[in-house]
């Protein structure tokens, strides 16, 4: 997990659809077994946690402050992916 939060892509300014697109692009371009990290708003965590867990990713969410969350996604070994 990246210690310096300023180096993590901040997606909190994106609308939900843009977030989905950018996150999927990030995941597609990420090397196998790597962990993808992003910063999102509270309302955006809902659209990441369940859909991506369901499609083969381990999703972890860490609260940074009232409205900002640090999300990590890693493809499960047997996961279908998204």
């Amino acid at each position, binding site marked *: 997990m990246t210690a310096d939060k300023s180096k993590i892509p901040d997606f*909190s300014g994106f*609308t*939900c*659809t*843009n977030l*989905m*697109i*950018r996150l*999927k*692009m990030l995941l*597609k371009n990420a090397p196998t077994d790597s962990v993808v990290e992003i910063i999102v*708003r*509270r*309302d955006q965590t809902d*659209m990441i946690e369940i*859909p991506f867990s*369901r*499609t083969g990713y381990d999703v972890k969410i860490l609260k940074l402050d009232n*409205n900002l969350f640090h999300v990590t996604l890693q493809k499960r070994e047997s996961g279908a*992916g*998204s």
Partner: protein
Amino acid sequence: MTSHFFLLGTSITRERLSWIEENLKFFFVKLYPETLRHHAKPKDNVFTFLITGDALYSLHEPETQQVWEIILLLPSVKIICDRQELDLRGISVERLKMKYPEQVIDYNSLSINGQTSFWRDVVKIARQHEQPIPSTIGYLHLESPYMHRSSLSAVQCLAAALEVQADIEFYAYLDGVHSGHMSQSPTEFDNIGKGLEDLVELASKRNLRCQMLACSRCAAARGYSTWDDGQGLVISTCTIKPFKIRNINEMIARFDRNHLILGENVASIQLVKKGKPTILAGSDKGNAPPITILITRSPYGTEHAFGALSFAIACAHNGIQTNVIFIEDGVYALTGTHQLSKDTQYFNLQEVINAIAGSENLQLYVFQPSLQQRGIAKNREMTAVLDIGVAELGQLFFNSLKSVQANHQRILFF
């Protein structure tokens, strides 16, 4: 026998009318061949074409009129024209009407104010189309007022819906959000903002529900979002009062319901559970009517193609079975290799398509005849987009998954 309708309001090219004609032939020849053998025509119309705006020119122009004549030779096809829009444009449909007097209707029903109204006919058909009779009629609006006459159509359509005691919902997407700008003051056109506010008042008088939702991404881009709480609530100081700017998911949540959603160019296909599910249709969850989004425009000149893909992603994300079909000029999204400068923060449409490939509830297709007509080929790397022809297009339109419980499929033209 089922019934389906197309509501078309923008210019209809010969290309568009031809693939619609091929689609209808597929329906009758492959799915209901018995209707072609019987001399007696079925009592009910199977396909109704509701034609307004610039789409009316197609009934008069020789190259499209020829295709309409083929369509009208098929059993149980009816065309209902918007009389007021015909008169406004000075278009005559007499030639078609003389040949097919029972199928080409160029007059409309009387509305409550004593004037004839095409939209009264539209909502009547919309209500017959669904059982039980729907309590809500929605309208997805994509264009700005004044530049596009379709904004007036949206207001007239929803006013007609209130006349038949339906709740109404207005969904503003892309430039459609401009219709909710406050203080509109046109001198040469009906005031669309006031028209929308009047709908709210009329609904209230009739004890009916009226909801107006605008997409927050589209609204923010156009300068409407004065304050955003970051959790889905957006407040604007420049929209009319009934307009609510919300995350697109809130709008799509309304699409989970079974009501009819109209728009400038839409179709509604009744679904019949018949035979095995097609392999093209993929897996399904939920009871929301499936959506087929037709991307008909080239990718970068307007926001339509990107808007359509964003809309599709949101629908699929909300559990709605969503097909995206690149057709007509929409196929340009798939040809060549699109490139943006490396340091840009934006993405090209092909990157988006590749990114969303394999998403749950979302299938992507390209209509091969559109590629062939333009002498282009699909980029070989776009493997997530499946090639389809007339037969597969017909299957996507008319065959539903066994697990789909909804009684109709929504088809939206972008």
